[in-house]
């Protein structure tokens, strides 16, 4: 039984149709990756799930419950965390305040403190930087903060939009390492990457999206071996 299921989603920005009937599913505990070229509709798919973009037709089921067009402050409560592309941390807020914002709907200081410690166990660097302003950190640290912030929600499904964008290879390595760790803790991962090879090599399954439609799907290793994919995304 999939934890997340998209049925024929169509999403528009004004008159522009960004998604032309996306159907996909994510199983509990899986790492699923969504690959595709720039402008294909990857980010819009995530936004449609989290409620940041309005779905016109189709339905989204989360744990068999219809969550189509629920606003983000409701989807987060249900356990869906979205780390939007481009990191988007709160630059003028300290690392600690950024993390506190992640726990926006969490009640109780102790619980928040506890979750913060959990985040530090993945990203010890953040603990050292607690009082630093988010905007003054390096790109890699900011990405770690963005992920850490989402973890404060203790999500069941973590949706990551191009976490490797603009980062040095060694940092990307670390981030992927952590994604694997999070997954082994039971968090379901929906990962968007342009860096298809790396994403497919850690993913259980993948979807290839082109021009607002899913054109191919398979297990990570199948897709890596696929000739079309090799040509288009792994060159």
């Amino acid at each position, binding site marked *: 039984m999939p934890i997340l299921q998209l049925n024929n989603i169509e999403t528009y920005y004004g008159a522009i149709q960004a998604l032309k009937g996306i159907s996909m599913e994510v199983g509990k505990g899986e790492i699923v990756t969504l690959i595709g070229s720039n402008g294909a509709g990857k980010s819009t798919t995530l936004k449609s799930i989290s409620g940041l973009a309005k779905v016109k037709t189709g339905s989204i089921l989360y744990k068999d419950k219809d969550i189509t067009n629920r606003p983000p402050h409701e989807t987060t409560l249900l356990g869906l965390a979205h780390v939007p592309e481009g990191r988007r941390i709160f630059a003028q807020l300290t690392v600690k*305040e950024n993390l506190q914002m992640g726990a926006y709907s969490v009640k109780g200081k102790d619980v928040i403190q506890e979750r913060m410690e959990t985040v530090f166990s993945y990203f010890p660097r953040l603990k050292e930087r607690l009082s630093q302003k988010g905007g003054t950190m390096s790109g890699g640290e900011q990405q770690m903060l963005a992920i850490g912030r989402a973890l404060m929600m203790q999500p069941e499904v973590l949706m990551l939009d191009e976490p490797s964008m603009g980062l040095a290879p060694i940092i990307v390595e670390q981030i992927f390492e952590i994604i694997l760790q999070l997954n082994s803790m039971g968090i379901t991962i929906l990962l968007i990457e342009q860096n298809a090879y790396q994403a497919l090599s850690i993913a259980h399954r993948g979807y290839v999206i082109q021009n607002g439609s899913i054109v191919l799907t398979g297990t990570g290793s199948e897709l890596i071996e696929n000739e079309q994919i090799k040509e288009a995304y792994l060159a």
Partner: protein
Amino acid sequence: MMKEKLIGFLQNKWSQVILFTLFVVITSLSLYLSQKSVVAFLLLLASLLILYYMKLKNLTKWIIGGGILFILLPMASSGGPAFQSYMEVATMVGIYVAMALGLNIVVGLAGLLDLGFVAFFAVGAYSYAIFATPQASNFMPFGSYPLGGESFWIFLIIGGICAAIAGVLIGIPVLRVKGDYLAIVTLGFGEIIRIVFNNLDRPVNFTNGAMGISSVTPPSIFGIQLVFPHHFYFVTLVILAFTIFAVLRFEHSKLGRSWKAVRENEIAAQAMGIPLVKTKLLAFALGATFSGMMGVVFAAKQAFIDPTSFTLLESFTILVMVVLGGMGSVPGVILGAALVTILNLQVLTELTNWVNQLTLNGIINVPDALSPAKMQKLIFGLLLVIFALYRPIGLIPAKNKKFDEKKLKTNRLAIDRENTVAIDKDNV
């Protein structure tokens, strides 16, 4: 050597206290002895700024500052004919500081550029003025009006609530747009409210239109009518103290952080589960509340209000206070509001008087149109441009909460130790 010694001396807590006391005593005495000395009055006010930078505990500073404002300033300026005019200026400073603190929530914390903020001040002012005059009997089917002066205290709350409701009502349509558009739309709504008050004399006479509402019942407490500026000075001071306390609490609350998060990045804020519309509306409503409360004080103090008190220029003036002082910074905004109000009411008026004197004496001939009091817009415009270019963060910029450097270091050591242990293990 000399210089270092001097700096060391100035940084010492006790030498600071001694110098500060000396400063306050001298300025108070000179204000008391030479009542006409505006300079002494302003210097005494400036002592609060010095106090802000001293090495004392926050609580101590609040107590000393409160002492200066509640006791020393009124006493020192009470000895002569200028007493009421000093109190009048100080009251206006208080009113504007509270308004600027309200706008700071909207602009500084939530990052929503509101150019029609004076509308909420107007709502507060009219709410009291209408019910504290026979005006209300034009449309109220029951009760007898004007209400007595005791009602003022209840109207402080009612005025705040009315302004908050106006904030939400304006906010709902306005907050659909962002950035520059928001600025333009709020500017429009600010004007609309003023024009509505200007025209709400027909078919039912609510506001008496452009004629304004006069003879507003003065507030009373324990049977004493509050009519003099020094009465209103104390009323304003109490409300201001409440405002500052509330604003500081808000800023460091979860709501305050959410405002900043929305300001920093709307999409990320939403992704964190912050309800965007509700958070923004709360900023509008709470910011408006303080403005509305001071509107009630203003109406009572002036005993007369008309729509010309609530023009666009007023909204700009409050915005200048916030920008000048430092967006998002409570001490900055207080300083900015005090400076701009004093510039408006004291410096420009004094300059105008002086220029008029010279003109009368035939020394120079300055046409009326160039009198300093009429240059507000020019001066505010220049100030905004200069600050935008050279000090966009304002006079006292917003800062994050101080953190414990020592604790940070021990944490870091602990982490290092863990890491070393881990490495050792690997080696084994």
